[in-house]
């Protein structure tokens, strides 16, 4: 019966973890692997081994790639957590009915995966999602080992410190704590030899835990002595912020293991055993503990809608899946982040519907939601991809490399670097990145798709690439028609793109020219608008003028008649002329009631939110980042 309850708690945890990982956070897990890199090379192994806990970094990095199929990666993670729970039970002899006590560590590890939020872009920790799991699995396994004179055996964790870092030290500390039990008479043979017992089983492990990092320190040129005791422990530090909250799950997990390992007075254990002897009380306590852990996990989950939707849109953009981006954008419950607005724009540009649908979607934009002082910058989250789709492959390359310097190379930036190199006709460079991606488990197929582009047959000219890789056609088009100047974005890519394109003109590329016109609209600048509008009309004389461009032309013609004579322009009578009159009248009447501009905008959003006019008058205070 008791085993049945233990199984039930485990099963409940598995289902709970599966829900939060797969249902709630599959986009997070996919992004996690996308921002990691594991390739089959001695160089990669050596890089992992540059710090203590190197083997864990290596294995953790290897396992992270399985998040490419989020359910698969989650299954591996959950399996390891269940193993931790079962070994914890064995190590500390916890009764079946108190199974949730063994689930404290797995719950904390689950929290550590789903509470990150935007820190996911700022972690500098290879294999973050698996290293603490593997490390704590090692610790509980070591704690479960029954060895005579175990304190002397702690020389093994001391020797394996380069492989396991802090987790080797924790093995020693746990052994020391377990050793204290000898005093309570658990071991009759050594009871009379307490001094020797303490030396072997308590003093040696604790002393080794303190001195081992010092002894190994000189083997590491990249390690500061003060960090030698915590190598392998996740620390959350970014340029402008740090977070101890995110380290708390790991601290709780470690402290909990210490509590389990600390010897309890016999009176206390007997008392607890008596009190909990009734299975109902035990079950009630266990259930309460489980519910409390589940509640903490639920509260820790970073469930901000935009955070997840942004990731889904980003991943869709990587797959050139414009429909998914627009669907996500259409169903947003509130304002989008600026990154989402740009991704939506890219989708509309690529679908060729930007002139008619640009203002059908949310263009307000807000800063990403964060729980702490983390400052999220688009250059770290999405700039390489956004620049790439704007044909600015040099800037994309730059931010890929800058981010690789700070946060390490990843599948994501290697893929973007490949595309940029191909567009720039740097075929040898593209080949290098593709060779690396070919040596990975899940990126091989992607690499094989682009590998022919580096061969002599395909590399001859851009027409070949456009023929065989149509998804790159627009990027190449933009890049080819771009001027060559020295420039800089000051770390704010959105403002740079708006300024650059709204001030550019092109008579040879319809795609480029439309981008300049749209960004001139975004600028709300009449002087920038007219030349780009005229150029657009000239290049697209065979097409009906898209509705938003008509809206802008009509409005600007009304606002500043001297800037352009619009009297002979064939505006759509219903959608432009009549609708603008209604828009104007509604705005005037609402203003006359004493509402301020913001309130008027809110009132008119439902009817006129899909027009340039509403954007022009009421879309304000956009802050890029």
């Amino acid at each position, binding site marked *: 019966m008791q085993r049945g309850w233990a199984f039930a708690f485990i099963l409940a945890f598995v289902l709970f973890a599966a829900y939060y990982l797969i249902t709630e956070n599959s986009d997070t897990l996919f992004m996690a692997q996308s921002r990691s890199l594991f390739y089959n090379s*001695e160089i990669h192994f050596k890089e992992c081994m540059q710090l203590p806990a190197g083997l864990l970094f290596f294995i953790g990095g290897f396992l992270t790639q399985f998040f490419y199929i989020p359910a698969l990666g989650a299954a591996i993670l959950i399996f390891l957590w269940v193993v931790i729970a079962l070994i914890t039970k064995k190590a500390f002899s916890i009764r079946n009915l108190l199974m949730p006590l063994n689930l404290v560590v797995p719950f904390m590890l689950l929290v550590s995966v789903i509470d990150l939020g935007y820190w996911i872009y700022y972690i500098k920790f290879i294999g973050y999602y698996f290293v603490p799991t593997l490390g704590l699995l090692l610790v509980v396994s070591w704690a479960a080992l029954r060895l005579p004179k175990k304190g002397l055996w702690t020389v093994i964790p001391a020797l394996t410190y380069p492989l396991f870092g802090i987790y080797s030290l924790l093995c020693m500390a746990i052994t020391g704590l377990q050793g204290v039990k000898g005093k309570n008479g658990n071991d009759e043979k050594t009871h009379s030899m307490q001094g020797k017992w303490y030396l072997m089983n308590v003093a040696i492990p604790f002393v080794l835990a303190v001195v081992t990092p010092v002894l190994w320190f000189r083997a590491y040129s*990249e390690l500061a002595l003060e*960090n030698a005791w915590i190598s392998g422990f996740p620390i959350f*530090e970014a340029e402008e912020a740090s977070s101890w909250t995110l380290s708390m799950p790991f601290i709780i997990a470690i402290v909990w293991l210490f509590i389990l390992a600390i010897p309890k007075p016999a009176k206390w254990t007997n008392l607890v055993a008596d009190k909990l002897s009734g299975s109902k009380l035990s079950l009630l306590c266990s259930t309460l503990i489980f519910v409390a852990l589940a509640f903490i996990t639920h509260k820790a989950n970073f469930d901000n809608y935009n955070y997840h939707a942004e990731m889904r849109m980003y991943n869709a953009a990587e797959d050139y899946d414009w429909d998914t981006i627009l669907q996500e954008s259409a169903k947003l419950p509130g304002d989008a982040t600026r990154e989402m607005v740009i991704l939506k724009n890219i989708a509309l540009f690529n679908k060729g519907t930007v002139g008619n649908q640009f203002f059908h979607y949310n263009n307000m934009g807000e800063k990403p939601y964060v729980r702490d002082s983390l400052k999220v910058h688009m250059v770290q989250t999405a700039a390489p991809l956004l620049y790439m789709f704007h044909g600015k492959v040099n800037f994309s390359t730059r931010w890929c490399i800058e981010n690789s310097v700070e946060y390490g190379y990843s599948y994501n930036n290697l893929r973007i670097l490949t595309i940029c190199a191909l567009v720039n006709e740097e075929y040898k460079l593209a080949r290098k990145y593709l060779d690396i991606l070919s*040596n990975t488990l899940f990126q091989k197929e992607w690499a094989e798709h682009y590998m022919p582009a580096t061969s002599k047959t395909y590399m001859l000219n851009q027409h070949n690439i456009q023929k065989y890789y149509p998804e790159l056609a627009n990027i190449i088009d933009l890049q080819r028609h771009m001027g060559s100047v020295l420039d800089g974005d000051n770390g704010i890519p959105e403002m740079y793109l708006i300024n650059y394109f709204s001030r550019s003109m092109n008579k040879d590329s319809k795609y480029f020219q439309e981008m300049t016109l749209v960004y001139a609209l975004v600028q709300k600048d009449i002087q920038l608008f007219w030349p780009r509008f005229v150029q657009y009309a000239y290049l697209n004389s065979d097409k009906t003028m898209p509705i938003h461009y008509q809206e802008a032309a009509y409005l600007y013609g009304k606002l500043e008649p001297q800037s352009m004579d619009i009297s002979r322009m064939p505006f759509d009578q219903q959608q432009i002329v009549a609708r603008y009159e209604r828009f104007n009248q509604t705005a005037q009447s609402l203003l006359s009631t004493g509402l301020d501009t913001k309130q008027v905008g809110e009132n008119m959003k439902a009817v006129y939110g899909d027009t340039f006019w509403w954007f022009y008058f009421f879309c304000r205070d956009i802050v890029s980042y």
Partner: protein
Amino acid sequence: MIHLRNLALILTLTGAFISCSRPKAPDTYIETQELPVIRPDYAEVTMPANICPPNFAVLQGTRNVVARFTAPGGLSYTYGEDGKIIIDEDEWAELRNAAKGSGIAVEVFAKVSEEWVRFKPFNIYIAEEDIDPYISYRNIQPSYVAFENIAIRQRNLTNYDESDIYSNMPLSTEKSGQCINCHSYQNYKTSRMLFHMRQGYGGTMIVDEGTIKKVDLKTDSTISAGVYPSWHPQINVIAFSTNNTGQSFHTKDIRKIEVQDTRSDLILYDPQTDEVSIIENDSNELEVFPCWSADGKTLYYCSAHFEYHNDSLAKETEMIQRYKEVHYNLYAKSFDPKTRTFGPSIKIFNADSLGLSATLPRVSPDGKYLVFSLAEFGCFHVWHPDADIQLMDLKTGEVRPLTELNSNQSESYPSFSSNSRWIMTASRRDDGNYTRPYISYFDKNGQCHKAFELPQRDPNFYTFFLRSYNRPEFMVEPVKVTPQEFVSIAREDPKKVTFKSK
């Protein structure tokens, strides 16, 4: 008897295993007159008499490959496994010694469609002369502004051993990241050496015959702290440039980034007195890249004449607008080591008149030649694919490109080995982005031979290694100060130097 039988069996099996495990060149094969495609390309290169084995990968679409190396006298070894030719270090030493002054013939075989093909054999020539046993370089991603996880490393050329001289990681926290650069030695020896640390824990690390100190070379009378260094070969003074450097980014140009100085001068630093003095500070000249001659009686440097025209613009802005107008020429300035006084500057190469820019001069220790990098404009040629290494005969003043060392990608930062027989350059020929050390034999007649890439144990190393080798420098001995000792000094406050007016 039983034991002996067992022993014999073990020996037989071991012998059989060894003979089986050793690759063998095929007896029958088809011959082709094409050279094999190998990476790195070591065909017809000349290598030093003390270099480690030049392992390579065979890129013929099959992993079934072998290569037979035959030295004069018939000494021959065959290698090949999984598409790679990994040469035993001891056997390579035998081959190398047997071939000194001549060449090792290399036959590459590949099994293609069940048939062995022998490609056109090539030679690896072994020079009579050794190369300096060590080089050092800065491993860094080809980054633009960001810096993290940078290391100055040293590599033993006679084997594959590599170690950190200094890594910025121990002191590189988020709030005080640290950039490190410009490692430099006096006369190829490491008892006197330096490197810079920027931003967090900033300063210049000076090792001076057993003492290590960190100094701040910025004074109120100089543009910046010391930047590009050159340690006088005999006396204990260092010439530095001081630079006001900015970076901007090409929207489309393949060069991607432009690093420009809006101001630069030359200074002289005395590590014993911690004084700096001005060497050159013409406000209309951008002086940079000092380099002492081997006898210490001449200071070579580069300078571009640049006058700002528009007072309403910031200098940085005007420089960005006119960046292609910056052409550096080569100058020489006499120096008296006893009085520590300089003579007038003499222009020795007018790159500007050719519409070009000359940078990074280095003089051969035998005093006969000067190498430098030449490109269309600017001073930061590592990002300029057109940058090539040129050789100047200091007797005749004749300048010619070192075609055997150059490629269609950037070559920059040339340097001579201490015996003047090897020239090393930082080249981007592999992929256009990641800088690799390439070395050419430079014979007594002043002829350069086909360059070879620094050998690595794993032939595919450069494919997977995502960092550049910046500023490769020859050394006759390893750096003996440990990285931890450097970190300990780096944590200290720097000693401010004082300015000494003329």
